[in-house]
């Protein structure tokens, strides 16, 4: 059908049943990947993976001769401790990814009233929110469980052994469990903050404040009162505590991991409730 014919034609095709949240998510992912900041952060994350591939290489080499000095360095092994280190040390990168790929997502839609376009289609509010969450879920997964699991698989292949699984059977579950919590909490929090304003810059500022201020407040209050319960205010501390608990490492704070877990779930639930309150279908048609 020639596109230079400007008359209106009826469409004769068959409608597909692809979930609209999937369609919206794919479009949002394309938009996110067009941003230079997002691509740079993914590249930096890739450098982390390359560094850990170096550890894997050293681990599989016989520690003799020139590599003999590695014999006394327990760090050079892709074990639970290293994987915990891998996931926790990328926290800053994950926060920056939230800023680059998520902070503006709903704020921009509010600024240009794009919700009126989206929700006038066969798209419900949960579909819209799921679609908006897709880029963050995928990008955060790319810097958390995907490389971690990939490293474990490569280790199994390189060493031709599943001995690590016998020593640390909890490791895949810890990686997946912690990553899921981290991705869910950061995604929901970022989208909730984004939905609170129609200014993309303000949304970014608010997200920085939401991530950093409770952390500073928790540090100060814990220092003043010598009570680690104040750590419950800080998402960063909660994630640290839960991560250590899941990887069966020494917890950094004197705080029940269950309390930290419950607090994380409450944060996620609160963020989702806020999102559902801020994004309403009835606003699609303006006026009285």
């Amino acid at each position, binding site marked *: 059908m020639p*596109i230079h014919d400007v008359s209106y034609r009826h*469409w004769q095709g068959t409608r*597909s049943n692809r979930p609209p949240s999937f369609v919206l998510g794919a*479009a949002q992912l394309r938009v996110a990947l*067009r941003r230079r900041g997002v691509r740079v952060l993914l590249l930096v994350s890739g450098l982390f993976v390359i560094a850990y591939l170096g550890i894997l290489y050293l681990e599989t080499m016989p520690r003799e001769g020139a590599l003999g000095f590695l014999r006394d360095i327990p760090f050079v092994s892709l074990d639970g401790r290293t994987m915990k280190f891998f996931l926790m040390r990328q926290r800053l990168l994950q926060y920056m990814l939230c800023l680059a790929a998520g902070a503006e997502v709903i704020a921009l839609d509010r600024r240009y009233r794009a919700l009126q376009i*989206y929700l006038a289609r066969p*798209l419900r509010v949960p579909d819209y929110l799921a679609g908006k969450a897709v880029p963050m879920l995928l990008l955060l997964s790319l810097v958390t469980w995907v490389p971690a699991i990939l490293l474990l698989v490569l280790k199994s292949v390189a060493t031709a052994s599943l001995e690590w699984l016998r020593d640390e059977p909890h490791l895949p579950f810890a990686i997946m469990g912690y990553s899921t919590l981290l991705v869910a909490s950061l995604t929901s929090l970022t989208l909730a903050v984004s939905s609170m304003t129609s200014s993309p810059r303000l949304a970014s500022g608010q997200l920085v404040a939401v991530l950093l201020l409770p952390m500073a407040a928790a540090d100060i209050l814990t220092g003043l009162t010598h009570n680690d319960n104040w750590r419950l205010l800080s998402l960063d501390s909660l994630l640290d505590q839960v991560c250590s608990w899941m990887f069966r490492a020494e917890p950094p704070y004197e705080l029940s991991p269950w309390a930290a877990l419950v607090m994380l779930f409450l944060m996620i639930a609160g963020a989702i409730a806020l999102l559902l309150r801020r994004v309403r279908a009835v606003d699609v048609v303006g006026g009285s």
Partner: protein
Amino acid sequence: MGFEVEHLSVRYGRQQALQDVSLRFESGALGLLGPNGAGKSSLLRTLLGFVAPSAGSVRVLGEPVGRDAHELRRRIGYHPEDDVLIPAMNAVGSVALCGQLAGLDHTDALQRAHEILYFVGLGEVRYRIATTYSQGMRQRLKLAQALVHDPELLILDEPTNGLDPNGRQEMLKLIRDLATAKGIHLVLSSHLLPDVEAVCDQVVLLHNGRVLTAGRMEDLLKSAQETYEVRVKGAPEAFAAALLARGARTTSSPRGSLLVQTPAHGVRLLFDAAHTSGCQIRHLVPARESLVEMFAQAVDRGPHADP
């Protein structure tokens, strides 16, 4: 069938937005008129399935509007009143996304996005980021987004807002073409009565959540009595007296001529009166009541539903 509402009432808390509204829109172009707060937006919200009625029933395109209203929106195109667009995308991308969201596959959506953007006159600028568009271009883009999935019912909320006179005429021509030649059921909500008069063949006047009047435009605009605008040479007072004696009513028009409301067969009566009073009729045209006058009269008369 476009839509049908029966005894529809909509409440927002204590505020009654629509009260016992019954309408039936078969096909063609329906104009929705009313001042602010009349209930136009509430009716549109209900048709799109965003608001549940507190009483009554709603059927759109033959389907009841209920829990699955979002599925029905695959068959509806909506052009919002507000200045809306999808940020960070060019026109082709955003129109194609709208098509995909309505169920078109990627290839079809992209092809149709190109076609529709040409149809609305944005073909040459379709690769520009939509946020850089002028107000008029954004209005056209909204129409493209509403049309890309080939809706059976097209709801347009103030589609000519912010357009210059030429742009407005072009937009009205496009819309009229959709309703008359392409067989799309069209609902046009507007404050601009000339727009409704130019596009629609049916009209609904809403006021305070009630239907003041509804029906075919030509029926509503036709006066109960025939009205003529007459200019005579001679003594207009004698001509007016002769008309009065024959049961006609006369008023002066702002342009210095006489507006004569006559019973049936009025033209003959006019010439009889002119002959009797010794006047010559120099100007005689049927006077047509405008939509503005009809709207004002309907508001004065109060609610009178005639679906």
